[in-house]
């Protein structure tokens, strides 16, 4: 830890008694926060604690009901993001807010283009954008549209964009939710550099490791209120979790999962067997065998093709080659419907674009897949819908004003839980979870994984994709490591630790 954190100068940014209510929810209640120059200040709290809302109030997206925002001692009332930017506050929001149709370079530079003779200097922009991303070790064609790239890249682009402004305050709302360790390390080294230059950084994450790796100071929020502010060095992990949750609970260092123990090799009949599955430009021929009642982990770096593999298995994209057999019977999936009919569910990593139907209620979002499977004519009675919704809201601890609230007004983590529930209600035989714990707080993550493991024990197969290697290793019965858009190796539980996997990923072929 640097010394700056313990010798507070005057705060650059000071929030006093901020309150904000939406219809039915008091999202923030008298929250105060001090942000000092040259520190990384982490905001922690369970899903729906009010972190994102606080950031939105701070950056002029929402107007606070009460409270004051002071920038260098001066009261400010930012009216818009632009306004906040002009005050020197640069922000990366939780949901990636970029324009999918513009090129990567433009997304970084829009609003502050390099100019030549009054017009936009495209070559310079391309050059600078390439260089900027290269600093993050991302080598891509920056002239292609953003939509061309997966979510993780988009997130890095959003971060790069925020770094470009010469700001006094940098705010990052869960920037690491779909990044893997390598990217996170890179990001952190950049952040440390900025900290040295005296920038104040407000950071939101659900990862305890990351919190301790980077923060000087931690503010914990609970139920829209500030629980307390601590120096990172003074607060143990267990204490932190307890403060977030507001009760004494076990932490993620909990005992090894019961599910894995229960999974006996004798029950291992194949449920889905893919042979030579491939798609041009996305996935090289790959074999995959998923057993009944098994939790199969799919590990790999960003862009290693895990999402592509999942989409092909689900029929979301059409495979160019290869076969898929379910229970030994060969099937071809022309659309997700076919896969669903075969008992497969798929929870996408991109909840904003591929998951949530934002204006519909929690209940409607939750029953959508089930209803789709039952067909249009056999509407699920309202009573039953409500019952299901209530049940899963409770089971997954979804924080929502009511089951009729539009899903768009839930916090990010809670939206994710609803989408998970959407597939759980259909009771699939195989559930493909692509980054299901993205943006979910520590406690909920554990609860969800426990829940999922319990389902496994009852015979459901799960394909689990996550950028968090420890999590994959912890819960999976078997892990397939992907590299360069193909399967690099397959390992039974226990035969694998983090270093081996990293080794496989790094070295690849020799190990496979």
């Amino acid at each position: 830890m640097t010394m700056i954190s313990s010798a507070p100068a005057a705060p650059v940014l000071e929030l006093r008694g901020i309150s904000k209510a939406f219809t039915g929810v008091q999202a923030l209640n008298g929250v105060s926060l001090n942000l000092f120059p040259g520190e990384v200040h982490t905001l922690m709290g369970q899903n729906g604690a009010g972190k994102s809302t606080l950031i939105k109030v701070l950056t002029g997206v929402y107007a606070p009901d009460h409270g004051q925002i002071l920038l260098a001692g001066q009261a400010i009332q930012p009216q818009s993001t632009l306004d906040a930017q002009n005050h020197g506050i640069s922000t990366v929001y939780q949901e990636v807010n970029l324009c999918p149709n513009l090129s990567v370079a433009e997304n970084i530079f829009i609003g502050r283009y390099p100019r030549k003779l009054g017009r936009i200097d495209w070559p310079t922009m391309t050059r600078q954008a390439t260089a900027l991303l290269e600093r993050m070790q991302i080598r891509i064609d920056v002239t292609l549209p953003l939509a061309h790239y997966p979510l993780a890249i988009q997130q890095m682009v959003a971060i790069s964009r925020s770094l470009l402004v010469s700001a006094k305050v940098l705010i990052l709302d869960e920037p690491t939710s779909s990044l893997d360790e390598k990217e996170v390390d890179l990001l952190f080294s950049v952040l440390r550099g900025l900290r040295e230059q005296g920038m104040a950084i407000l950071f939101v994450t659900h990862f305890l490791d990351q919190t301790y790796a980077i923060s000087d100071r931690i503010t914990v929020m609970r139920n829209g209120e500030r629980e307390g502010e601590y120096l990172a060095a003074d607060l143990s992990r267990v204490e932190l979790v307890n403060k977030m949750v507001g009760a004494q609970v076990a932490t993620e260092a909990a005992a090894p999962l019961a599910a894995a123990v229960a999974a006996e090799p004798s029950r291992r009949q194949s449920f889905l067997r893919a042979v030579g599955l491939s798609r041009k430009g996305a996935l090289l021929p790959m074999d995959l065998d998923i057993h009944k009642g098994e939790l199969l982990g799919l590990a790999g770096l960003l862009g290693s093709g895990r999402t592509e593999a999942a989409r092909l298995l689900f029929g979301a994209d059409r495979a160019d080659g290869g076969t898929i057999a379910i229970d030994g019977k060969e099937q071809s999936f022309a659309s997700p419907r076919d896969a669903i009919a075969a008992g497969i569910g798929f929870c996408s990593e991109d909840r904003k674009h591929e998951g949530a139907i934002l204006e519909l209620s929690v209940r409607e979002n939750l029953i959508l897949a089930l209803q789709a499977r039952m067909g249009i004519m056999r509407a699920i009675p309202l009573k039953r819908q409500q019952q299901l919704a209530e049940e899963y809201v409770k089971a997954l601890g979804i924080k929502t004003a009511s089951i009729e609230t539009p899903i768009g007004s839930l916090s990010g983590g809670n939206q994710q839980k609803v989408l998970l529930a959407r597939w759980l209600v259909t009771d699939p035989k195989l559930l493909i979870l692509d980054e299901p714990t993205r943006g979910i707080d520590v406690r909920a993550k554990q609860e969800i994984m426990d829940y999922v493991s319990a389902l496994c024990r009852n015979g459901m197969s799960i394909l689990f994709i996550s950028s968090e290697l420890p999590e994959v290793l912890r819960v999976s019965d078997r892990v397939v490591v992907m590299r360069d858009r193909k399967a690099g190796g397959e390992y039974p539980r226990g035969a694998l630790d983090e270093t081996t996997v990293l080794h496989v990923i790094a070295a690849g072929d020799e190990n496979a």
Partner: protein
Amino acid sequence: MKFTSSPYFTSLITVFLLVVLLGAGGAAYPGFLSVQVLFNLLIDNAFLLVIAVGMSFVILSGGIDLSVGSVLALTTMICAWMLQTWHWPPLLVIAVALVLGTVFGAAMGALIHYFKLQPFIVTLAGMFLARGLCYLISINSITIDDPFFVAMSQTQLPIGDCFLSPGALIALATLAAAIYVAHCTPFGRAIYAVGGNEQSALMMGLRVARTKVLIYAFSGFCAALAGVLFSFYMLSGYGLHAQGTELDAIAAVVIGGTLLSGGYGYVAGALTGVLVLGSIQTLIAFDGTLSSWWTKIVIGGLLFVFCVVQRVMTMRGNKK
């Protein structure tokens, strides 16, 4: 989300299909492929091109402007009225007309943005209003005999042994300026950003409000400019001028490869779109045997073939 439709590719296909269309016309009808006939395409559709340029901006931003045809008519009416009744100098008349059109567009843009109203409905009401205002000025058509307008109308700028009209040149200049604005200025890029995702554009700190108002102001300006060109073209002001032109302009823009949902496409596509529509009409005129209803059916049919081929080729191209 996968990147499914490359606007660049679509635009190229459109140009290719246009060439095929012209070639087919040339093969079928003698004299069709003369340079003057091609120039006539520009002369006769100059006003449509200008409107389509403004419409491109609007559609790229994810909006739509139905008022352009009526604003065009209103402009011809205002020009005619000021020239014939008040005898104002022609350049002043043109300036006033352009300012009025711009203000009209900006007002609609402001309503759309500040009251969060739907562009379709606001500009539909704008369409009724502008058309209605024409009738309030006069329900008759007013002939323009101002020497400047007559000169603009009848001047033939010789190119080889063919000619272009000043209006066609003005339209081409407008197109060039718009392409420059769209691709080389922050305002132009902001249009694309708003069309891609308005919410994100706002979160990225773009001046969405200003951009949107400016877009509709620009469309209003283009409609008024088209009105001035139309006044040159017809030498009259009339409330029934250019009925349904908004649909032609939208069709031209969309055929040119721009997506109505906003954010994807090129302003230059407006030119291809306009030329496609113009060629279809010229083909029909050269054929000269179609009855009124067959004219409609053939226009629809050619439009169909064109859109389907364009679409199928785009899908094929993206698979590769």
